[in-house]
């Protein structure tokens, strides 16, 4: 350890500031343990809680043998009531259903399978895996039919990647800051390790006609949801995914198989995949020409917004939390980009006036959630927390003013934090902290 990174005083105020309003150097507290060891010795640690420790004793659970191991482990009962997805359509009305990831209650980079976001447009089909079929046909030498059993015998590949709905963060198109949590605003993205068969392997076996430039993927859901995808993505990194974080794909994520197009618009990652038609051109399906073609301020619309562009947001502290007095907090969040690895995340505590570089948790995987962390010594005065990400290609998360100038905002405030006034928002999120410690979504 270099001496410059040692902080023996135990006083947060003695740590080198990295930016205004209490942001500390990202290396100050990482893996050193020096600060808190020192803090305890000088009494700063106890001052954070304001209470003297009582003598330790065994609790009841330490005095008796525990419960039987379940065949399939579930989270602690203390977590089950608290850590859940928000459901947009809990009674199953005949419309789309969204289940949003509680980013503020998670840490790390992998979304647990039960908390991975899902969107189903006509409910989740109950598919018998032994009867499910995937057919590849169209502009191929030999159309072929695959069962789950035959696909399971193929060489497999694993890709850790995020999936993000094109409408994630859409409430931030509102002209006034919608009062919503990070789960409500940004909960339609998640990250998992997906394992399956490379689509290129299957297409090669069918023999793709050189005229073909696209394929149309279709699900076995009641809408037979269909999306057109350029073949370039198939040759690059597309999977027919069978596994999600090591186990078979969850029903809402496409069981028994889904198309996985790493980091491309979520809706294109067709679930319950049953048919791939190789074609010269796109089908111009409902979801690509209507729902996921977003309007621009000049009244034209983007079509084929394949990429989820570089983005980050702070997951803690975030809207709805209350800080328990001045002192140390870790500012943490996630960053990701369809265009490669995250290269840098900057964090601000003064609404963008000054910025400090956040630490990126290793390994930094392309097209995957990257966890960033920045130490912060809150002095109790108003603060506005922001993050801004860069990818390895030099793409930068746009500032809100620039984004709104290019992509527009609503004419009236959005009041529904689960609403979709537009798509593909990737600008900066601001969380305002007031002197009482309450954190609220603001624009800055």
């Amino acid at each position, binding site marked *: 350890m270099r001496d410059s990174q040692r902080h023996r005083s135990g006083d947060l105020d003695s740590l080198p500031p990295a930016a205004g309003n209490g942001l500390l150097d990202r290396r100050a507290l990482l893996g050193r343990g020096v600060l808190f060891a020192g803090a305890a010795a000088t009494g700063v640690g106890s001052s954070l809680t304001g209470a003297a420790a009582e003598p330790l004793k065994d609790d009841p659970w330490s005095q008796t043998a525990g419960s039987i191991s379940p065949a399939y482990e579930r989270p602690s009962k203390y977590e089950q009531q608290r850590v859940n997805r928000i459901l947009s359509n809990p009674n199953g009305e005949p419309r789309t259903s969204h289940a949003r990831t509680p980013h503020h209650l998670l840490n790390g980079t992998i979304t647990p399978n039960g908390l991975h976001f899902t969107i189903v447009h006509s409910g989740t089909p109950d598919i018998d895996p032994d009867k499910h079929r995937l057919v590849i046909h169209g502009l191929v030498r030999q159309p072929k039919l695959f069962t789950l059993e035959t696909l399971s015998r*193929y060489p497999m590949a694993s890709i850790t990647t995020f999936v993000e709905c094109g409408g994630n963060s859409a409430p931030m198109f509102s002209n006034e800051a919608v009062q919503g949590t990070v789960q409500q605003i940004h909960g339609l993205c998640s990250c998992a390790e997906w394992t399956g068969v490379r689509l290129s392997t299957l297409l090669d076996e069918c023999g793709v006609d050189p005229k073909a430039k696209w394929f149309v993927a*279709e699900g076995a859901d009641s*809408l*037979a949801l269909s999306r057109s995808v350029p073949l*370039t993505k198939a040759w690059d990194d597309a999977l027919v995914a069978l596994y999600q974080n090591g186990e078979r794909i969850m029903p809402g994520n496409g069981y028994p198989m889904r198309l996985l197009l790493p980091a491309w618009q979520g809706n294109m990652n067709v679930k319950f995949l049953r048919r791939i038609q190789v074609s010269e051109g796109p089908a111009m399906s*409902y979801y690509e020409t209507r729902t996921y*073609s977003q*309007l621009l301020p000049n009244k034209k619309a983007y079509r084929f917004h394949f990429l989820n562009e570089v983005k980050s947001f702070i997951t803690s502290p975030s809207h709805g939390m209350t800080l328990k007095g001045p002192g140390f907090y870790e500012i943490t969040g996630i960053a990701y980009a369809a265009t490669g690895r995250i290269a840098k995340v900057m964090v601000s505590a003064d609404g963008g006036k000054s910025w400090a570089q956040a630490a990126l948790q290793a390994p930094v995987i392309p097209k995957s959630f990257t966890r960033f962390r920045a130490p912060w010594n809150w002095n109790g005065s108003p603060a506005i927390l922001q993050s801004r990400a860069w990818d390895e290609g030099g793409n930068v998360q746009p500032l809100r003013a620039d984004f709104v100038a290019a*992509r527009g905002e609503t004419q009236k405030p959005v009041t529904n934090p689960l609403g979709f006034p537009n798509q593909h928002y990737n600008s900066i999120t601001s969380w305002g902290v007031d002197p009482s410690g309450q954190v609220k979504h603001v624009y800055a």
Partner: protein
Amino acid sequence: MSTRNAVLVAALLALASSTAVAAEGPNLGQPITEKEVGAWDINAMPDGTGLPPGSGTSAQGAPIYAQKCAACHGEGGKGASAGALVGNPPITGIESPKTIANFWGYSTTVFDFIRRAMPWISPRTLTNDEVYAITAYILAENKLIGPNDVMNAQTLPKVKMPNADNFIIRFPDRI
């Protein structure tokens, strides 16, 4: 050809053939004919490829719409629990409602989505004639075709959608 070039060519040929073998993979897929794909083959492309035989008019579509669509989409396509199918409100901002008349780029998408996804409670139960007729009804009510126009695999792709030219391909380099 020099000896050196001949060796190089031989090496490249060997490489090419080994690549071809590798690309074949386990070959566990069961060969199937396009005819056997049959009922699943429901993509209607913008140039009309994939549109089935059959035809329908707005007059034929009106009673089918009333019976099978109006419960959710409202009388005359004005919208109810599900979105409006008829109406041409001007696009005034990024959150303006997108309708068939003010936004959709292709008439074939109307046919395709009805055929694949509707009615909600019993998708893919309409005959092709019924899908053509409902499509004709919706297009006629939106004044995108004449009241007596017949929709079929030849006429439908020719219907001009007013907003067709207002789209920008966001990532053309990825195609």
